[in-house]
Each structure stands twice: as structure tokens, then as C-alpha cells.
């Protein structure tokens, strides 16, 4: 059975796969166009006081362990919720719990899709996502390690991989 090395999970090729996983999850299950950010940076990050959601999923695969963390502004979270659920604008807005559930599932899909494509072979275990609300700057400091900057519907999404 193939066992990945920790270094392979953060190699440039693996980070490219992470971008592909984000695009696939966003477009296929959340019906939201996604692009890797251009070299001149992310879309408008908003103000420092804006609320962001931080969703972290811990993984364990054949001796490797780490966390994939998704960081996104609240308005993008709401847009993803509406797209996933086909929510009518006249419907009541989602509760905090519903929004957290949905963004946790978003992060869960990204982590799983990335692991499946990066190291095909061994099964992996994912923890239940942990989702919290944070001010923008604290959110963007939520995780160390390599990260990808994405644009979803012209809104920023940051996904980071941290190894244990």
C-alpha cells in the first residue's frame, strides 16, 4: 500500500491539485464559478471588520495528518448557501447553524477531493468540520502552511493546508 510522504502533500503539484479541487467543488456542487486568483492578488477583501467564516477539516491518511482550512467572507458563504440549496430570495435567511453546516460541508468536499486526487490509494479519515466566525484579519491568520487564493463569483476564498 502506497504511503504518501508529508512533503508530497505540500509540493507545488499537490497545491495545483488543491486549486482544481476547489474549482470542481465550487462549480459542480455549488454552481459557483471559480478561478485561481490572478498574480495581482485577490478580489476585494472588504474591510477589516467584516465577518469571515473559517472552516477547518482535519485529515489522517496512511500516517500523514493535517488540516485543510477554508477562509471566506460571510457574503460568499451566504451566496454558496443560496446556490447549494436553491434558496429563493424571499425565503428566510439561513440560521447560523445551517450556514456553518453548509460551509463545513464545502470544506469537507474540498479536503476529500484534494486527498483523493493527490494520493490515490489509501483511504483517509476526516474529522467533522469545525466552523467559526472571525474578523477578516484573524480569519486570514487562521492557518499556516501553503495556501491557494481563489476567486468565487468575484469574492475571495483562501484555502490553506497545514501538516501535523
Amino acid at each position, binding site marked *: 500500500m502506497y504511503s504518501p510522504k508529508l512533503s508530497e502533500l505540500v509540493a507545488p503539484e499537490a497545491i495545483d491539485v488543491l486549486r482544481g479541487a476547489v474549482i470542481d467543488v465550487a462549480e*459542480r*456542487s455549488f454552481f459557483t464559478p471559480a478561478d485561481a486568483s490572478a498574480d495581482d492578488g485577490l478580489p476585494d477583501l472588504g474591510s477589516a471588520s467584516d465577518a469571515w467564516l473559517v472552516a477547518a477539516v482535519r485529515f489522517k491518511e496512511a500516517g500523514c495528518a493535517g488540516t485543510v482550512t477554508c477562509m471566506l467572507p460571510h457574503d460568499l458563504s451566504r451566496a454558496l448557501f443560496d446556490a447549494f440549496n436553491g434558496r429563493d430570495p424571499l425565503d428566510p435567511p439561513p440560521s447560523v447553524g445551517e450556514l456553518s453546516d453548509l460551509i463545513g460541508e464545502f470544506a469537507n*468536499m474540498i479536503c*476529500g477531493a484534494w486527498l483523493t486526487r493527490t494520493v490515490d490509494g*489509501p*483511504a483517509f479519515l*476526516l474529522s467533522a468540520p469545525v466552523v467559526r466566525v472571525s474578523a477578516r484579519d484573524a480569519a486570514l491568520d487562521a492557518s499556516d502552511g501553503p495556501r491557494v487564493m481563489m476567486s468565487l463569483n468575484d469574492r475571495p476564498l483562501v484555502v490553506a493546508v497545514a501538516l501535523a
Partner: protein
Amino acid sequence: MDDSAMMRAQIKRVVKLAGVPVDEILEASNGVEALAILETQDVQWLLTDINMPVMNGAELLREIARHDKWRALGKVIISTDGSTARREEAAALDVHRYLEKPFSPEVLRDVLTEAVGAGRA
């Protein structure tokens, strides 16, 4: 069965929109809840995630395989884990179809339509 209520809701929507002939859709957030349902309800099809707390999908499927009374139960896995190891494990547990997340609703619709249409003895 999925620990995400949002995912369970989406799957229910797709099942209804697909026109798959079902009498009732029952929900569980982990394997223990699913077993309780299986013990008391006449279930024909189980759609299950893998990674869940308390009892995950793989543990549930192994438990189901131990009992003859659930021999005819149709099983579909819907999971982010598309690894070779999981797929091989699923095949050994007589899983009918393995659907990898992310998926489009149309793919789920087609899987369910084919699965229910094929029927189980």
C-alpha cells in the same frame, strides 16, 4: 445517512425532483441512528457517507453485512473519499454504486434512477 443536515436535504430534494418512486425518505446523521432505523423500518435503499462521527459509513456497512436480514438492502455510498482502498472495501461489502463528492444533482439522479430501477432481490 450523512452528518451534514444540508447534504441530507439536498439528496432528498434530488430524489424528489428525479421522480424516483419512494414512499418515504428517512434520515440519519451517523451509523448508530441508521441501525436503529434499519431495525424498525422496512428500508430498501441506504445512501450513506463514509466519514461521520459515532459510527462511520464503513463501520455501518460491515455491521449490515453481518446480518442476513439485510441481505437485500441496496447500498449506495456518497462520499468525498474516492480512494482506491475505499472503493475496494465497498465492492467487498456489496455496495451497488459509489458516488464521489462533489457531484452534480443530475449524476445523483441518474445513479438513483438506475439503482432503484434495477431493483434488488
